[in-house]
Structures are given as structure tokens and as C-alpha cells.
């Protein structure tokens, strides 16, 4: 009987908002159950640590990478993962497997929670608060946004992927998922470097000329002028000033 009450109280502790009070029944139970009190204390401390981390920004091409990875995973899943699952034709067998996985997860959480003191030290030491962080898709809900055009000279919209990605512990969703919070806060943040971006992110450096093209011309009749051409252009903008764009809504009444 006591175990049942303890479980219910711990579920409530798991699911409550960080600042939200517990129910009267749970509060009363904590007064008499030292184990649950200790559980509540560790949970609260852990969330406070996670919640105190500052907001970080997602890398600029996070959305692009995420979609690329999802597309890859989707194709892989259709070939490798889904096929074996089709073998689970017995519904009861599938349910049993799911329960087993769930139980194993709960045990892991308990185990990790007991090492709370050690984690506190590790967490603060391992996270570089100034570094941009790549959030794993499974733990961070990515919300694609409408394209934004700020900061670009081209006509294409840039998907605004600079939306801050909050660390678990600061959002409602994260609060309800202490498992994710725990793992994430316990792992050092991967820092994106430019060479990594070249290899994996389809964002590549442009090796453009350092030499610009500036030339003074004369027309042979005493008139002169200077033409300057930028070192880089995007799309079909004419490189040279004063010339008509090509093939704009052809034909032109000329056959």
C-alpha cells in the first residue's frame, strides 16, 4: 500500500512544474516518508541546475541539418528498422517488449539519480556556457519558422534557425521529461567548428578573390569613367553595370 502511494507521489513530483506546489496529499506524504522526501529533494535540485543554464542559440543551419538527418533516418528506417518490427505480429508480445524497455529505463533513471552529487560537479564543469550547442533532435523540440531574410544579400529567404534552443529545465516540456534533462545536462556540449560545418552541414566556405576589379575606361572621345565589380555575385544579376538582364520574360517580339 505504501509503495503505491510512494509511486503516485513520485509521479506527481516528476510531472509538476518547477515552481508549482505539490498537492496537499503529496505534501503530507513527504512529511512522513523520508525516501520520497529525498527523491523530491534530488529532483528539485537537479531541475534547478538544469534551469539555471543560460539560453543558447541553435546553429544557423540547424533546421537544414535536422531536415537532412530526418530524411536520411526516414529512408534508413524504412529499410532496416520497420522490416524487423513487422515480425511482431503478436500484439501481446509487442506490449511485453515495450513494458520491458520501460522498466529498464526507470531503473536507469533511479540509478543515475542516486549519483546526484557527482553529477552536479560534472555538469557545471563540462558545459561551456559560451559555446553554441547542437541539440539532439530527440531531446529538443525543433519548431521550424517562416523564412526570414535578414542578413542576406541574396534574394533567397534564409530559414531563421537562430531561434534560441532552451536547455531542458527551462521549458515546460523539458520539465516533464527529466530523463532527457538528465542525459543532456550530463553531456558536454559539442562545439561546431568551421571544418565540421564543411564536412557535414552543406554550408561551405566560398574561396573568393581578394582582388577586386576596378578599372578606368575611356571611350576614345575624351570621356572616361571607372567601373568597379564586386568580387562575388549571386544568381543572374548582371556582373557589369548598365547591361540588360538576360532572357527576362523572353521572347521579346524578335524572332
Amino acid at each position: 500500500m505504501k509503495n503505491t502511494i510512494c509511486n503516485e507521489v513520485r509521479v506527481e513530483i516528476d510531472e509538476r512544474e518547477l515552481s508549482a506546489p505539490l498537492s496537499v496529499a503529496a505534501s503530507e506524504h513527504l512529511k512522513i516518508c523520508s525516501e520520497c522526501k529525498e527523491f523530491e529533494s534530488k529532483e528539485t535540485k537537479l531541475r534547478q541546475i538544469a534551469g539555471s543554464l543560460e539560453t543558447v542559440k541553435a546553429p544557423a543551419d540547424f533546421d537544414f541539418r535536422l531536415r537532412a538527418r530526418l530524411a536520411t533516418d526516414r529512408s534508413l528506417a524504412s529499410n532496416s528498422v520497420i522490416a524487423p518490427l513487422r515480425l511482431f505480429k503478436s500484439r501481446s508480445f509487442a506490449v511485453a517488449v515495450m513494458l520491458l524497455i520501460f522498466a529498464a529505463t526507470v531503473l536507469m533513471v533511479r540509478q543515475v539519480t542516486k549519483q546526484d552529487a557527482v553529477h552536479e560537479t560534472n555538469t557545471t564543469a563540462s558545459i561551456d556556457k559560451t559555446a553554441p550547442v547542437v541539440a539532439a533532435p530527440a531531446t529538443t523540440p525543433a519548431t521550424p519558422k517562416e523564412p526570414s531574410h535578414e542578413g542576406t544579400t541574396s534574394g533567397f529567404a534564409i530559414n531563421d534557425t537562430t531561434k534560441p534552443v532552451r536547455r531542458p529545465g527551462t521549458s515546460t516540456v523539458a520539465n516533464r521529461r527529466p530523463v532527457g534533462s538528465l542525459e543532456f545536462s550530463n553531456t558536454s556540449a559539442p562545439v561546431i567548428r568551421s571544418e565540421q560545418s564543411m564536412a557535414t552541414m552543406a554550408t561551405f566556405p566560398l574561396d573568393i578573390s581578394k582582388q577586386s576589379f576596378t578599372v578606368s575606361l575611356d571611350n576614345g572621345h575624351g570621356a572616361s569613367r571607372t567601373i568597379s565589380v564586386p568580387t562575388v555575385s549571386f544568381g543572374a544579376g548582371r556582373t557589369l553595370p548598365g547591361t540588360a538582364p538576360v532572357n527576362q520574360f523572353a521572347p521579346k517580339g524578335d524572332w
Partner: protein
Amino acid sequence: MITAQSVSSGQTKPAPPVRPATPASPENRIVAPQVVTVLRRLNGLEMFRLLLRSEQDVEAIANLDETFRLMDDVHTNVIAGLALEDGQTIAAWLPEADGEFSIPFAPPRTPTATTALTAPFGFSGELQSSDLTVIDSEGKKMAAEFVGVDGSTGLSILKLRRKMPAPPPPLKEDDLITVGEGVRLLGPEPVPPSRRFGTNNLYVRIGEASGTVSNVKQAPSGDLARLKVRTPRLLSSANVGGVAVTAAGDTIGIIDAIQGSEASILPAALIRRAAKRVLAHQASVPKPWLGVKGDPMATVQPMQLQQQGWEMMRAADLAQAHRGILLTSIVPDSPAAMAALKAGDVILKVNDEYIQTAEDFSWLLEQAGPSSSVEFTVARPERKAEELVRVVLSASPRRPAIAARPVPSTKARWLVAQGIETIALRPAVAARFGSTAGLLVVYVEPASAAFEAGLLAGDVIQTIDGRPVLASSPAVFTGNSTPSPSKFEVVRKKQKLVIAVAKPAQDKK
């Protein structure tokens, strides 16, 4: 000039056929591996050539930047490309391909493995592998060769030196595209500067704008001729060349023009045909040429017809019918002139197909192709009955390299006739080339006598037949003096050379 309004006034597909409109929502966006980035680098010499072929009034270079080096890159154009399913062919809208690359409209020949990898377009040795780089969706860089321009579509066809590791998906038939369908417009864009990349480096990625199909234009044959995509924001010339894909990632086409917030899309089927034409010739393929200027009858007033000799009643009837093209001028010695077409004639049909818009007329001529025979149904002011006129189309005349310049000098014309394009250097600039004032050679036609004699782009011509080029009388450049080869005294890498260039046959007479 056809505007977006007149284009959209053409035939549109009646009802959405099969595929339901799919909005390009963020949830169902996927990566489009067929979209690549094409980098076209121009060095100083190529920039001079472009300058010479532009509409700029250029006679001489008076001064240059201190750091300028003729063969160093001075400009990079970044534009989207569409990788076709063979994993080696790229279709891209290189903005200045018509002026930048020499376009020798070569006769058809059988492509071979060798011709595919050499430079069949006759670039006099300057087009190097580094000039064209293709970057795939994973950021992998690959060298590419220019094969040719398709005159009908304006698309440049490139060939990768090596096949892409993962060939892109095949182009799908695009006749199921419907008005209202969500579209993604993809193309390279600069990544905003960030601490991560550093502020000094320019990074590029594939950007995206979303829109919806606003118009589906059919050709008289029923094929998809053009699509219009409307976006919520204004587009710019930077969007031209971008690839339009569906929400599912299937290719719709390439943006070939923009107007305000509307993009004109060249459909995938036409891209495939353009690539096929250019690859079959292994060279640029010209647009079929008739040699006329005209206006679609839908835009012509009866008064205009009367000025061309039409009776008032017939002019009113004709104008009301909104069919045909009124010819306003004929180019001498053109296919139209040879077929006795005249200004004031109205071409009503091509091969029994009625013409309603200028685009219809272009489409029908392009479908016929150069060197083909077409039959026009023509209404004429002096005859009440319609007439059938047969015309053999030719290849569009190659634009003379400096024809666009306002007043090409005798000297420039003579040199161009020899296959040589030059730009004069004033003394201060010539000194940097180790020369006195002279003519900088920016292009030498590969089939020309000058090319065979060894004249190269980058040489500075100081004298021809012993006379300084900048002080010579026009008689030197008329080519009528002697039948013997002209002696060009040039400076190459600060060393003097004498090159004997044989005169063309007509000059020897």
C-alpha cells in the same frame, strides 16, 4: 517584350487533374539533392572580354587597380544548378554565358568520350577546370566543363568531370502541377556572418523561399510551357537560376525570370530537352531564326494595321480576332526576307496551329528547330485570301562579339573579322604588361588564322605590319594592302614576339 500579365493571359490548364495541392509546410519539407551550387570564376582577362561584349562604350583601359593581375580571379558568380539523373549533367542559368563564352554553333556531331571531356566550345585555352565548380548538397566540390548554351531556353549545360557519388533522383513528368500547389524555390545564398564562421570568410548554403503556383501555361501542343510561382515577398535577380521543387522534393523547373514577387519557371520537361539537344551536339544549340520583328495581334490597334496598308474594315476584323503576329520589320537576307514576307503581313498559323500570343509563336518555332521548314498561313493587306508561305528557318545569327558597342571602329571591325577581340591599353596600363601603348588581346577565335599562328589572349599587340596599332591609319585595317601574312609584333609575358597571321581568303583578293 512579354510581361507577366500577357504571359498569364495565355491558355491555362482548366481543372486540377490528379495530384492534390500540397502546401510546402515545414513538416513535409525534405532535402533536394538535385539542387547544386555552381561557381563560375572570372579572371581579369575574362572580365575584359565580358566588358568588351557588353553594351558598355569601351575604347581603352586608362587605369587599373594597383593589385590587379590579369590571370587572377576577380569575380565569382554563385548560382543554383540542377543535377540530372545521370549524375554528371548539370543544367544552370549562367547569367552571362551568351557573352562570356564564345558560342560556336557547331554542326551536329556524334559525341564521344573524348569530346565530352575536352572543350568543344572552342575557348582559346583559357577555360580551366577551376573556372567552373559544382558543389553538391553535401558540400562536395567537383570540377565541371561547359558544354554549351541552349539557345531556346538560355540554359547552360555543364558536364561534371566525375560522376556524383550519389546520382540525384530523376526528373519527373510535370504535367500534374496545379495552380495553388506549394513550391519551394531553392538556391545558394550567403550565410549571415557569425562568430562561428568568422567575419572575414563568406559561407554559402542553399536558401529557400516558399510560394504557390499561380499560373500554369500550356503550349499550343498541350505541353507544359511555363509556370508562374507567386511568393509572399519580392524576388530579385539573385533568385534567377534557382530550382523550384515541390514540397516532396520533386523538381518542377528552373527560375528563368522574375517580376516583382512572381517567378517564371522553365519546366523540367523543357530542361531535359535542352540538355538532350546540347549533349547531342556537344556544343551550343542556336535558337531557330526567322528574321522578323512583330507584335501579337492582341496588342495591335486597327489604326496600326491601317498604317501598314490594311483597309479599315479588314483591319478592324483582324484586330478583333486577336490572332496572329503582325510583322513590323524584316531583316534583309533573313529566312523571312527570302520567303518574301513583308512588314504589314500577319502570320496567322504555323503548320496549321493558330497563334494567339508571342509566346505561342516562339514555342512553335522552337519546336520546329533551326534548319527546319515551316508553313505559315499569312494574311496580307493587298490580298483578301490567306496565303501559304513556306520558310526554312536558320540558326539564330551569332552575335558579333562587339556588335553591341555603339560605334565599333574600323580597326576593331577588322580585327574581329580576323577572329581577334582587343581592347586598347593607355601607356600607364601598358607599362604594367611590359609594353608601350597597344591592344590587349582578350579573345582569339580558335578556328582563326591568328589562333593557328599562335596569337594568344593576354598578348599585347604593338604593331601590325610595322605600324603602331594605336596610330595606324584605317587603311592598315582594311586588309586590302597585300596578300602576304600580316606581321603582328606582340608582347607576351614582357617579351617581344613576331607572329605572322595569314589573311582570310576574301582579303587576299
